[in-house]
């Protein structure tokens, strides 16, 4: 098992290098805007542009810039490890800002994950167990609705109704846990639910489908014949086996949220990594874009690794040796 984990970690590094290389080519080799000019003011004279290029490290050949980036990433730079450089826009080190935004995105992602698991899986189970009932139909209608509803529209509608019209929730923005737990919770509930609904719908459908298939297996009949209570048959024998694809999806979904919850973060003004990445793309703040892409790539790869390791516990047939 440990050798498997180590091998996978090596692949994380390879994935990271490939993704950063692609991102580098997109933003440094094919930019529509010279980043030095973008940060040289509204009358960018050649002298100013040259000085900005020098300070931003853009006066080196592109291949040298990339190698320096990789070296700093793995060995650190003047701001510490990992070496993510400084933001062109804020002229400050990226690392502390990325860390604070990572925490916000993590709170959003983990909270939403808990919500969608708490909603999606029970709905899927109930729907599978009571097939063709009113509950099943309502559950699938719920799933269809939220699968079809774009997150930005759901978010804007939720804000407009629940905050603007009915004053049931606080407005947008982020309050840290340390400042006020109640305010933090109040500000996060709506983004959690908005982000979770799409995934809850998917997970409900997937759980339902898998569970229906699993409950038709012979060993389920055997479990019933042995006299086990129905809830044990469903949860311990049926659900556990049907969760394997759900776990796969969960790993990828949770990992990808670390860089792609940008819509939710923008709508609710949660200053996480996704929102920062978008602002940085438009501003031409390339080091920030690279940093967010790198962290997201690592997050996705690590989440997938964790998921694969969990397989071994969920499904005894799986062995990594």
């Amino acid at each position, binding site marked *: 098992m440990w050798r498997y984990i180590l091998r996978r970690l090596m692949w994380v590094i390879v994935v990271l290098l490939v993704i950063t290389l692609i991102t580098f080519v997109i933003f440094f080799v094919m930019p529509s805007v010279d980043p030095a000019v973008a940060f040289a003011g509204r009358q960018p004279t050649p*002298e100013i542009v040259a000085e900005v290029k020098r300070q931003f490290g853009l006066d080196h050949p592109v291949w040298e810039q990339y190698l320096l980036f990789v070296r700093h990433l793995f060995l650190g730079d003047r701001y510490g490890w990992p070496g993510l450089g400084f933001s062109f826009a804020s002229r400050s080190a990226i690392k502390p*800002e990325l860390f604070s935004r990572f925490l916000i995105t993590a709170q959003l992602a983990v909270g939403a994950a808990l919500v969608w698991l708490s909603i999606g899986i029970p709905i899927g189970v109930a729907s599978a167990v009571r097939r063709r009932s009113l509950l099943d139909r309502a559950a699938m209608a719920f799933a269809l609705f939220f699968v079809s509803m774009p997150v930005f529209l759901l978010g804007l509608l939720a804000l407009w109704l629940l905050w603007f019209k009915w004053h049931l929730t606080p407005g947008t923005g982020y309050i840290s846990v340390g400042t006020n737990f109640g305010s933090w919770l109040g500000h996060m509930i709506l983004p959690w639910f908005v982000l979770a609904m799409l995934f809850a719908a998917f997970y409900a459908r997937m759980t339902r489908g898998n569970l229906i298939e699993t409950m038709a297996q012979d060993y389920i009949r055997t479990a019933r014949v042995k006299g086990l209570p129905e809830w044990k048959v469903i949860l311990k024998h049926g659900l556990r086996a049907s969760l394997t694809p759900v776990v796969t999806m969960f790993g990828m979904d949770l990992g990808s949220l670390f860089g792609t919850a940008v819509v939710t973060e923008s709508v609710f003004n949660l200053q996480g990594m996704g929102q920062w990445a978008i602002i940085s793309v438009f501003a031409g703040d390339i080091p920030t874009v690279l940093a967010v892409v790198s962290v997201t790539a690592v997050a996705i790869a690590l989440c997938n690794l964790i998921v694969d390791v969990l397989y071994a516990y969920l499904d005894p047939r799986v062995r990594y040796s």
Partner: protein
Amino acid sequence: MMGNNRRKLSMVGLALVVTLLAAACSSNKNSGTTNQGGAGTAQKGGVYRTALSDFGFTGGFDPTGEYLGLAWDMFSTMARTLVSYKFVAGADGNKLNPDLATDLPTPTDNGLTYTFKLKPNLKFSPPVNRAITSKDIEYAFERINAKPLVAQYGFYYYGVIKGMDGNATAPAPISGIETPNDSTIVFHLTKPTGDFLYRLALPATAPVPQEVGKCATKAGDYGRYIISSGPYMFQGLDKLTVSSCAAIKPVAGFDPTKKMYLVRNPNWDAASDSLRHAYVDGIKIDVDSNVDDIFNKVQSGALDGSLGDQPPKTILRQYLTDQNKKKYLHVDSGDRTWYVFLNTTTPPFDDLHVRKAANYVMDKAAIAQAWGGSTSGQVATHIMPPTVLSDQLGADFDPYGSPDHTGDVAKAMAEMKQSKYDTNKDGKCDAPACRGLVMVNRNVAPWTDTEPVVVTSLAKIGIQVKPRELARGAAYQTTQTIKNQIPVGLNAGWGKDYPDAFSFAGSIFSSADLVATGNPNYAMIGTTPAQVKDFGIKVPPGWVAPTVDSDIDNCQKIPATDPTRVTCWAALDKKLMNEIVPWVPYLWANVTTLTAPSVTHYEFDQFSAEPSLVNIAVNNKEKLGS
């Protein structure tokens, strides 16, 4: 059974829809703060709460380099200069007044020497806590002169103040600036520069304490812990440790990606500052990427006003049509002109008659409508906004006027007939050079809405353009690269740097402005034969660039305090429109701000063309801890 279930489901669905509809149709009541309406006199106290989608700083908010109007609005709270403005709207807001200086000096030595005396009781904010001296102002200029600190508008001082050329490797004494004592500063110029006083009102010239400034060795560093000379300072600045450079850290109250919180500077002497009322106890500016959310919060009272972002059309319509809301809509002149530029080096726009015809034919009324109607601005009839010319030249000067500004095709065709590109004299441009002209534009509204109007208007006189829509930055870079020789562009606008017409004419119509990249003189006015060679561009045989260099130089010699200076610029504007015709100006843009009822006194800062943070008052009971 099945039928019963279906009926139940239908009832549930219907109830849900009815509930949603009822909620949607109910009126919204304000929440949050105790609002007493927008009327009433200004009162001290409270916190002005606002938000914007992005600060957009290009120089890290370092006063030495930051070249963004919105940033200059924020600098008014913390960076006093020798001379400054009243931070009010209109012509009064564009007049210079003494700020740190005791008065506006008249230059001596044939306009080459300016001497200032500083007011007493001027002090830096914590943690520096000492008197502001002339040496601190001189140090600001040393920073402007230092290349690593990238003074983005340093060109206003290089070659103007003796000893300043922008090539110093680090801040160092400047031969043209004398500080004989702590309260006197003398500037020696290389040539008479009539608008020099206006250049001294720019934030880069605000005093910087050297004991802190020396730690900011590259562009943008100082922006995170500016030591204030104004009525406000960053929240947390008093906790900044300045015992050594290593100890200096960005303060908590300012994060360029998230917020700027300002609290009162305890060392600001109100008696020395007649320009800033500083009614509020604090200013909270938050970044909110959801622009709709910003304006919803203004409507609900969770924010006191907008800043920097234009309201969405749906919300603007509410404020325009609802009499109760109209008083909270503020429309002010932005001192900015939006225009279509015509590159005089490229056919057919090398021909003056074609440029005039383009001005005659343009349907400016339709363009103004595409921009959002009268709130977005006034149809521009000449280059410089009337407020920049102290209203000496208004909209009544309209050399290419037409009924309701819809364009005059007959006059345009009559003009075109005089052009060499109308070979059959039918009033339409029919030479091959009239077709397939690349027109650069931005890829967002209102520019995309304006594009069909411009395309159609030019087509009436036979000019066929091919629009190329690009993101803002890419559009500017493409058109500012001289070698590209973009013939016509819709992407550009120009706003004043300071309320003297030199910041229009001198910045964009002189041969000195022409640079290979980053060129703002899109029409290529004043291009010399040597420059044609240097830039590697092709020009029509026998082409001679129209020029106004001598006109600019003549106006520049007149001191800012002499009223004939504005008359000179107004005459230049007339010449530009009648004889040079570099643009089709179409809109003098407004700035639209929405406020909440909690704002008891709204003021607009004409200098920065943003809400005046130093003269706005609210009646909320918010507090902002230091």
